[in-house]
């Protein structure tokens, strides 16, 4: 038996949902199907798909390799400066990726580090490597957070028992903690991968938007909107929507 109260709240919910569905469905349905298929199979979009898959796979792998030890250390070890470390790994979570991009651009560009790197023949700015670096920098804090909460839900007593049964600390981590965290790690992997593929601001600034060179899917959306190629932009968007749906 609905009251005025529940009816009002449900009506607002319905209105919002209809608006959201209309906006997203409107995008997908805007081009005709043949147009959409033609755009999806154009050389530019195929290049963007390939580049996005490769860079996001590499940056996601890097995120996991770094996030697991960092998250474990922050969950189980006590060390001086732990609360400061906490702030540092959480700060990028509320930092706009665009700002991370500017910071990386300065760091690998005109800064001392960038100058030294270039002198040794390593130039990152406006390259494909820059895409991976930008995706890694923006997403590693998310991966750390998810991995950490996976470790935090594992009772340390499992490790205690494993150690009395003959494990070293590394053995207990590898044989007990890591298998128990698998589900959380997989969830983190999917989210990080999906965020890497969708990363725009940081990639735009550090890797630039060069057609058929640093053109990931979001960069393809941006470039095609800029040049008025609405169908190509929509095609790239539809793929990104599909990835978002899969990673839900």
């Amino acid at each position, binding site marked *: 038996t609905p009251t005025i109260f529940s009816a009002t709240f449900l009506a607002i919910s319905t209105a919002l949902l209809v608006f959201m569905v209309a906006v997203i469905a409107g995008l997908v349905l805007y081009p005709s199907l043949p147009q959409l298929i033609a755009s999806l199979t154009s050389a530019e979009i195929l290049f963007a798909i390939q580049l996005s898959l490769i860079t996001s796979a590499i940056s996601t792998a890097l995120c996991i390799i770094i996030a697991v030890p960092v998250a474990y250390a922050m969950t189980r070890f006590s060390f001086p400066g732990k609360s400061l470390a906490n702030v540092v790994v959480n700060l990028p979570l509320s930092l706009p990726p665009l700002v991370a991009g500017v910071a990386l651009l300065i760091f690998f560009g005109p800064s001392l580090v960038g100058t030294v790197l270039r002198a040794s023949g390593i130039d990152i700015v406006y390259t494909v490597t820059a895409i991976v670096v930008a995706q890694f920098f923006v997403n590693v804090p998310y991966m750390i957070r998810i991995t950490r909460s996976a470790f935090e839900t594992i*009772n340390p*007593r*499992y490790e*205690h*028992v*494993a*150690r*009395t*049964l*003959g*494990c*070293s600390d590394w*053995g207990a981590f590898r*044989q*007990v903690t890591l*298998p*128990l965290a698998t589900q959380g790690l997989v969830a983190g992997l999917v989210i990080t991968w999906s965020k890497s593929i969708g990363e725009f601001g940081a990639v735009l600034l550090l890797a630039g938007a060069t057609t058929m060179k640093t053109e990931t899917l979001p960069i393809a959306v941006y470039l095609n909107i800029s040049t008025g190629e609405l169908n190509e932009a929509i095609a790239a968007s539809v793929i990104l929507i599909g990835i978002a749906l899969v990673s839900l």
Partner: protein
Amino acid sequence: MLQITELSKTLGSFALKGVSLSIADGEYFIILGPTGAGKTILLETIAGIHAPDAGSITMDGHEISRMEPKERGVGMVYQDYMLFPHLTVEENIGFGLKQRSIDPAAIRKQVGEAAEMLGIGHLLERYPGTLSGGEQQRAAIARALVIKPRILLLDEPLSALDVTTRERLRRELVLIHRRTKITIIHITHHFEDLFALAERAAVMQNGTVVQVGTPEEIFKRPHTEFIANFTGMENLIRGISTVHDTEASIDLGRITVTALTDIEGEVVVGIRPEEVIISAGPIASGARNSYRGVITDIRPNGMFSWVTIDIGEPLTGVLTPQSLATMNLAVGENVYATFKASAVHVFAA
């Protein structure tokens, strides 16, 4: 022999403060205390999970307090089982043997024997999540025993189980102890475990050991009011004690009781309900304290009944429904309440 000397350890809001204990080989030793007394930290420090802040732990005279857990020869069983959920019962029990790189056939054999001893031989293929609490705890005990530790550490192993299972597993712990002759240190906050299991016991409070002795000593001669209360003492009354020779007269206001104590001045006396003899007429006995009073309340409580008698102070005794019926007692009737001088437990107030 395990010798713990002046052991201290602070961990978050819990702390051990200068704990000393010696536990003989093959002894079943219980550590009793309320939540937050520091019992689990003590056990985990013995196991080597935490390094002590101060003090020493020696085994047969060798210092072990800096050794890795795996070198100490301890088995650990927690209240919440801590079976590895991603491994079968068989893999759980064999986990410790696998670390020792023992040949799989030998592991299989030893796991089978341990599982049989605990009556879970039919569950080896199952995953822990599919077992009952009692079955899980049996598997956890088997996992700890199969590595043949010198000491088995049990952290409230029965607390998470239902009453029937707890009772049954408690009896099995007695059998396991008899059969394996292993040293067992068992933490609990149920004083029932004390009677059923312990050869000796320690009571902990706020990170320190407040009493060590046999269960009977702790139950019958609690050192402090806290222990008395914790072990279920009722009839706690304040009074003034005056000592004459080996015994004391304690003035409780309306009545004076005789006790065996040398504590003078302001005291609290405690008398366990089951040490109060209730009779229709005066009884001839050696008991020094006997009072006539009126029954003010009878509260049936399933297994037995609480009877409160006003003898100047309200005094509670306990009777089975059988005795109640035989003696034909009811509220308002006059009865005699009798208790020995040795049944009056006296603590400084």
